[in-house]
């Protein structure tokens, strides 16, 4: 009878275990569409065997709980790739705005800055036209008109870039606020998970924390350090502590030299955040590297065109026989026959023999209102002379901006910007592809057994090998195609 009871108990226990396991499966099915939910697998514990007539008989298993099928290593890799992808996406969006501003399509409504390259050409061409008849008032008006267009487009572009920079600061501040909210939530979840983990699987809490980590990874570059009882410490990629188990540390903002900087525990970590990844990294890279670089190029163009044109015009003789002279009491270094306003740093540069061009683009404007003040003649040649107009038209061919002509400098600048956009675009596409692959692997891992995991792994391996072959073949194909297209001389 004892044997029958034991057998019945064993069968009953098995049914209970199966029922519990079914509950876990049902929970998985019910949460199939829940964002961030990780499938759970029942945990089985072997029961102590029973002894009947001196023979040990297995007593089946008991379902002791459920464990989420996640892998921290893979999730961390996914988070890291998301950080890089998010950074390049944010940076790319900003670079595209800069590019659209400086290389507008013909007739595009977004062409607020106009086409500065054409403006430069048109401005110096106006002096070439003036050479033919220096006394023609319409030709003189044309010089001032093209100068206004050039100055207006350069200052408009610079102001738009400054506006983009301010908008990026605002975006970055918003991101910092979201980061603080998420790190606070993760610290709280850490406490709950640590109190649950020694005795049971904290599946749902872990799902929540993983979702928060995933969101955090898109916002800022982080490193994760596992601690006891399944706790987690989080640092920025450069090592500043954001979460230490149950405690979170807040990012704060402050204004430094007119820009919004980011602090953690009183330390300015803006530059570390810029290179750290996530949207914040992308925004700060665009704000602190890409926009200043574009602005610097515009400043150089504005500074050297303004100062060279002003210098040459003041050296000549205008339609009324006047030559240029310093404006009495001017603190900007202005002269009487200036066409453009002196750049903000001009006077200081004269004093120090420096080459600070900052602010020149945004401040560029035409100060000359009377076209008769254009000094087409050279001193001593009479007002009908055109030789100074020839000199000023020739500035177009002088290497006055970083050892390049103004048009070549602008053209190279725009071309470099285009290459950078392509580079970041390529990086972004590749990183997003990598994220897609890892998500596929992660989904496979969190919902299947080891055999299926091996199949997912095999797909990754096969895809990589096939893609390597495709790459090699395409490389050969393209090299051959390029060689075939080359014209060769037959002697």
């Amino acid at each position, binding site marked *: 009878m004892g044997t029958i009871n034991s057998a019945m108990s064993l069968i009953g226990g098995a049914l209970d275990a199966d029922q519990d396991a079914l509950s876990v499966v049902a929970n998985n099915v019910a949460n199939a569409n829940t964002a961030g939910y990780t499938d759970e697998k029942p945990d089985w514990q072997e029961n102590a065997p029973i002894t009947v007539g001196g023979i040990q008989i297995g007593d089946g298993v008991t379902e002791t709980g459920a464990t989420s099928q996640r892998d921290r290593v893979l999730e961390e890799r996914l988070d890291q790739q998301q950080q890089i992808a998010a950074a390049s996406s944010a940076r790319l969006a900003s670079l595209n705005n800069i590019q659209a501003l400086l290389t507008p399509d013909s007739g595009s409504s977004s062409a607020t800055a106009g086409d500065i390259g054409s403006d430069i050409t048109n401005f110096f061409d106006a002096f070439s036209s003036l050479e033919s008849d220096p006394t023609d008032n319409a030709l003189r008006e044309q010089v001032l008109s093209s100068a206004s267009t050039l100055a207006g487009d350069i200052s408009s572009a610079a102001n738009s870039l400054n506006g983009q920079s301010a908008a990026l600061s605002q975006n970055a501040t918003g991101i910092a606020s979201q980061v603080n909210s998420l790190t606070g939530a993760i610290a709280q979840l850490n406490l709950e998970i640590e109190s649950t983990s020694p005795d049971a699987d904290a599946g749902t809490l872990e799902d929540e924390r993983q979702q928060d980590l995933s969101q955090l990874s898109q916002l800022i570059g982080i490193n994760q350090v596992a601690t006891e009882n399944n706790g987690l410490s989080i640092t920025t990629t450069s090592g500043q502590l954001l979460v230490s188990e149950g405690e979170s540390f807040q990012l704060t903002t402050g204004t430094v030299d007119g820009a919004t900087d980011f602090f953690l525990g009183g330390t300015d970590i803006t530059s570390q955040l810029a290179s750290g990844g996530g949207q914040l990294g992308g925004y700060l890279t665009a704000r602190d590297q890409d926009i200043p670089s574009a602005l610097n190029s515009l400043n150089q163009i504005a500074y050297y065109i303004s100062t060279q044109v002003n210098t040459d015009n003041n050296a000549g003789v205008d339609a009324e026989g006047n030559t240029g002279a310093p404006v009495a009491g001017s603190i900007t270094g202005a002269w009487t026959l200036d066409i453009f306003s002196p750049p903000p740093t001009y006077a200081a540069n004269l004093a120090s023999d420096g080459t600070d061009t900052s602010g020149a683009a945004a401040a560029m404007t035409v100060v000359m209102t009377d076209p008769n003040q254009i000094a087409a003649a050279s001193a001593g040649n009479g007002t009908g002379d055109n030789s100074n107009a020839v000199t000023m038209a020739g500035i177009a061919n002088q290497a006055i901006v970083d050892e390049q002509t103004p048009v070549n400098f602008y053209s190279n600048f725009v071309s470099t910007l285009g290459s950078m956009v392509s580079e970041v675009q390529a990086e972004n596409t590749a990183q997003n592809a990598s994220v897609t692959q890892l998500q596929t692997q992660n989904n496979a891992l969190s919902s299947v057994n080891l055999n299926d995991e091996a199949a997912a792994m095999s797909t990754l391996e096969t895809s990589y090998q096939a*893609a390597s072959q495709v790459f090699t073949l395409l490389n050969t194909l393209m090299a051959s195609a390029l060689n075939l297209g080359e014209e060769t001389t037959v002697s």
Partner: protein
Amino acid sequence: MDNRTTKAATIELKALVAEASQALAALDAPRLEELVHSCEALNRELAQENNREQRKQLARQAREAGSDMAVFGRVLEATRANLQVMNRLREMRLGRLEYKAQGGAADWAGPLPGSGDGNH
């Protein structure tokens, strides 16, 4: 050589590279294997191409596909890195399985310390 075939093939060169990137991103192994065969065929046809105009067309197509090739190269690079991570992960898991087998534990598919969530 059938010029029509070459023309169709060269027109799609840029698209072909872009499709390879997409297929790799999605880990579409069957499509990638099809692309291997397509590229092999294209290489064979290209070796026989004699028409001067077609040669110029091919060269232009190759130049235009350059940036897409750069993207494909980077996706391939990222995939290799992912594959390395997955391989290491797998080794860790297999290592645990062997260890557990010696210990006689029953939870054959549980998450792993270090690589898993450490809930045990």
